[in-house]
């Protein structure tokens, strides 16, 4: 945990420097007749971030925060595995949105989560995987007319839309 506190402080400090550099692509000083340049607001805020990160690192060195005194492991093997499984499954679902669309990706994610992670029966898994996209389609696409991504399955929905409209 102690090392993680330092790493986070340093990484965020570097990110602050990047933001300062990126903000400086626009003027950061006073422009006569226009006021502060477009980059001034984020530049000074990023400088504020950097100062906070320096303070966090100093406090870490002085062991002033509970994390800087902690001897706990930041993430044990089991926590890391759970994180990878969940974040990975989410990333895979979002990736699949581009290919098979929401109505393909969501059932696949539900099948993975309910069957593999939750060890639920095929009956329950199948029911959720089938009913959830149907309800979402009716709510978002028909009732609210909010179109979700469909990937290559887009043409398959034409007859359904023709039925409703």
């Amino acid at each position, binding site marked *: 945990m102690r090392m993680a506190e330092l790493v*986070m402080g340093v990484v965020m400090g570097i990110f602050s420097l990047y933001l300062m550099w990126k903000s400086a692509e626009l003027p950061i000083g006073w422009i006569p007749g226009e*006021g502060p340049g477009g980059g001034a*607001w984020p530049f000074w805020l990023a400088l*504020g971030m950097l100062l906070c990160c320096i303070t966090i690192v100093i406090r870490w060195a002085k062991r002033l925060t509970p994390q800087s005194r902690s001897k706990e492991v930041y993430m044990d093997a089991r926590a890391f595995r*759970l994180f990878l499984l*969940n974040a990975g499954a989410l990333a895979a679902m*979002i990736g699949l949105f581009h290919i098979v669309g*929401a109505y393909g990706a969501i059932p696949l994610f539900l099948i993975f989560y309910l069957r593999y992670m939750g060890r639920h029966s095929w009956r*329950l898994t199948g029911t959720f995987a089938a009913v959830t996209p149907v309800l979402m389609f009716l709510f978002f696409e028909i009732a609210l007319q*909010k179109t979700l991504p469909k990937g290559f399955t887009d043409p398959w929905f034409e007859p359904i839309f023709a039925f409703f409209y």
Partner: protein
Amino acid sequence: MDTLSLLLNGFAIAFEPLNLALIIVGCTIGLFIGAMPGLGSVNGVAILLPMTFLVPPTSAIIFLGAIYYGAMYGGAISSIMLGIPGASTAVATTFDGRPMALKGQADKALIAAATASFVGGSIGVVLFTLFAPPLADLALAFGAPEIFALMLMAFATFIGLGSDDIPKTIFSIFIGLVFGAVGLDIISGEPRLIFGDIPGFYHGINFLVLAIGIYGIAEMLWVIETSKGDALMSKAEISVRRILDTLGELVRTWKTMLMGSLLGYFVGILPAAGATPGSLMAYGFAKTMAKDPETYGKGNINGVVAPECANNAASTGAMLPMLTLGIPGSPTTAILLGGMVIWGLEPGPLVFTDYPDFVWGFIASLYAANLFALLINIAFIPAFIWMLKMPFTILAPIIFVLCIVGGFVPTMDMHDVWLMLVFGIVGYFMRKLDYPMAPAVLAIVLGPLAEPALRQSLLISGGSFSIFFTRPAAGLIMAAALGLFLLPVWMIVRRKMDQRRKAS
């Protein structure tokens, strides 16, 4: 007396069978739209606006007003139950509503949210009835320096008296403000902070993307880790006894309710502010005023009451400049204003005299909508509690799916969904190190309001910061904000003095 008779006439219009039915249907639809992550009152009102051409203008505005109110109530539901803000206005409700649900107090949080919404809405509509014209003038007197001072005050409430790590809190505010600056520069129109030249950054970072990432995905990853994957979502129960106990406890939060309602109403009437900043500021103030600020963010009922009172009072307040000045105070009222124009009405100072039936029928309907929204909300609480009792391994994937869809719907851009995942993962790592996340959400909401206010103020003053101290209202708010900023320093000095005294 004149106002009372006009209001009574308004009630006669609002309680006509058609209008009453529209209030009930509107509140119910609004409740479910508000509860759906990523969708808020603005979506409900925009989608159903064309349907209002089937009824007279008074019935139409009553229907849309009921949807607006219903959505304000509904936003709290998914904030409390799932940890995903149902609407932008309910982000602050997540801070304490979600921890309450995780402690098995979902029923208490839902009742608190509904009751606070009712109180906030009622206070808002009473103020609307009694003081509409003078309050509209007051709102107009609030210029850029006053608005910036008010924003600074909101940030100060998260720092002063906050129990969190101060450098991390300030860092969180700054990073939220920087994310709020991504997109196009408001004055020059030039692209700003477009990371990697990715086109998705041109429309800025929608604050719901940050809020759902942090309070949806990061929170879920946190719950899964801390429970080692065997989390019970909630031991929630509901019974008449528990409802009565909660109502008893809510009576003791009257100060928070009053503060949240008045603050929310005032922020609501400011042009371009609206219910979201109002609710976040009310949360900050409640935490600042509390005797136990360290319990905020861990399931303090006042942390639910303050933002819920404020967002409902603000939603009523936002209608005031819309009706009296023709200036919308929020995106939803902008659509309502458009509706009024389409219906052939002219919003402005003469609206109260030119269309008394329309205005007073609408105001009276707000009283009725407030009551019906409360009753409908409470009637559905057992169903919401039942949902929470589902096994975690069923609820978790549903929450994840709602997060993803909720992140996509506001901008219809997959870039935002990826960004939300990144925020979720980084937010999870930061949460483990006790970085407070609420200030970042507050900052990304207030940043796009604070920056133009600062730049306009400096333009007026020719670059001098004295403008924030020479104008009476701005100076007063600035002094209070600076006092709050310096409070942690004073507390450290006092603690050291106490320690020295004890040692000697």
